[in-house]
């Protein structure tokens, strides 16, 4: 009984964690846009906007590539 239910529970937990990861990535994109637009205007320069967006894109790339490499390892 215990062993038959175990894989289903694992799959459920994996799905939940995958959902949470997807949501967090999307939420962080929204946060970057919200903070970025105010920061750009507050610091009065388009360089800030490009900086915020560039850093965000780099960060997402590092996280995505890092996760991929860790998965392969």
């Amino acid at each position, binding site marked *: 009984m215990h062993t038959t239910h175990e894989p289903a529970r694992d799959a459920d937990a994996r*799905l939940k964690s*995958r959902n949470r990861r997807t949501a967090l990535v*999307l939420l962080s994109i*929204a*946060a970057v846009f*919200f903070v970025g*637009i*105010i920061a750009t205007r507050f610091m009065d320069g388009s360089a800030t906007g490009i900086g915020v967006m560039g850093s965000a894109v780099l960060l997402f790339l590092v996280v995505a590539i890092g996760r991929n490499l860790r998965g392969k390892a």
Partner: protein
Amino acid sequence: MSSIAHDHAPGYGHDDHAHRPSGIARWLTTTNHKDIGTMYLWFSFTMFLVGGVMAMIIRAELFQPGLQVVNPEFFNSMTTLHGLIMVFGAIMPAAVGFANWQIPLMIGAPDMAFARMNNWSFWLLPPAAILLMTSLFVPGGAAAAGWTLYPPLTIQAGMGMDLTIFAVHILGASSIMGSINIITTILNLRAPGMTLMKMPLFCWTWLITAYLLIAVMPVLAGAVTMLLTDRHFGTSFFNAAGGGDPVLFQHVFWFFGHPEVYIIILPAFGIVSQIIPTFSRKPLFGYASMVYATAGIAILSFIVWAHHMFTTGLPTAGILFYMYATMLIAVPTGVKVFNWVATMWRGSMTFETPMLFAIGFLFLFTLGGFTGLVLAIMPVDVQVQDTYYVVAHFHYVMVAGSLFAFFGGAYYWIPKWSGTMYSEKLGQVHFWSSLISFNVAFFPMHFLGLAGMPRRIPDYAQQFADWNMVASIGAFWFGATQLVFLWAMVQCARGKGPRAPAKPWEGADTLEWTLPSPAPYHTFETPPVVR
């Protein structure tokens, strides 16, 4: 879509073992995507009626030249609230309602990925609507600067503006949560075999819309936050007296505002892309090109915002860029229109109410798109900026575009939602009356705009009187016609009508039609396998 294997687990398709709470608790605490979809749809229709009453007040005032029904300040509040309520309270929640009902059913998911957050996304809407409506009763009245909330008017306005800003914040939060939910559901909860390129086009259009929302709603939230700090915390983002720049707000607002147009229209494209193949009894022509065209429209929508600002004094190079980029959107849009027409070509077509609304959409949206192309030409835009030509253009896109598609979608799926067939007679009356009255109301606005009648002004010169009277009659007629729709839907909700079979439409081939009608409270607990 490819064939669907009925890989039923025991009890699959008969899983109406609903253990739902009853009464008000069911609706307050529900995490079921169907219940939440229903609430979204009723909420949006209620707000549609509220916004519609405001439109009637506007048209009553404009029935004749002179001031006769309301004072100018109240008229300005009406135009502002009508826009905000229709965009944020009626059209967007309606699209989310369709998404809630249909996306899990179409991809074979048991529910949305974050069911509790789904409940919260919906229940944020009523407080926001109350804030907007309450603003009418505070000192200084409601926001009256237009739905675009341009400073300096919005910096100088009374407390009603603060309520509007908070309402926009809440609505934005709700939209972002809804979008996260939709993207996560589509990416992670598709049934086995349901690859992205096998998904019904409605799911594709919503996936792309949700990404658009996540990118632009925070920008609007940022803009109104800056407006709030300018009003109360001594900053000068947009306050010229403190060194700020009011035009900056327009850039930020339209960076949100133009993609918003596509946020409103893309789900409508998705609905029409389901209806036309069904009633043409042919697969959608050029499915892959439809997906790429949708993505193309979404990407282009980010680089055209300043075509709303041609008269603010942009550099020539900027004007040329925004003009050509805007015209470029006609290419993927044209691909879509061509594909819909090609789907109908030599199809075995029938003209039930959903198909009528889809064809009405196709005809009138194309007209609205064409006037958009006219407005993209900067020398023309300078002439008709802020005239009724613009009002006519965007109502052809938003009302005859989105709203007609949503009406079509409601008639198309109501048998699955309620288990009852709608009255075809009422549906036909609703369509033909809407089609004629809509054109009576909005087509003359092209003439008024070209003749120079400015928008958002409660009085006008005698030369505009005749067409304004015609437009007002059309608007009252269009408003009254929507009660037919309400009656048709209430009849279905009450089960008054013939029982709907599992698949009432011969040409329908998506996953929801494999379920009984009405769809059971819990569906696809065992995922179907799509081949």
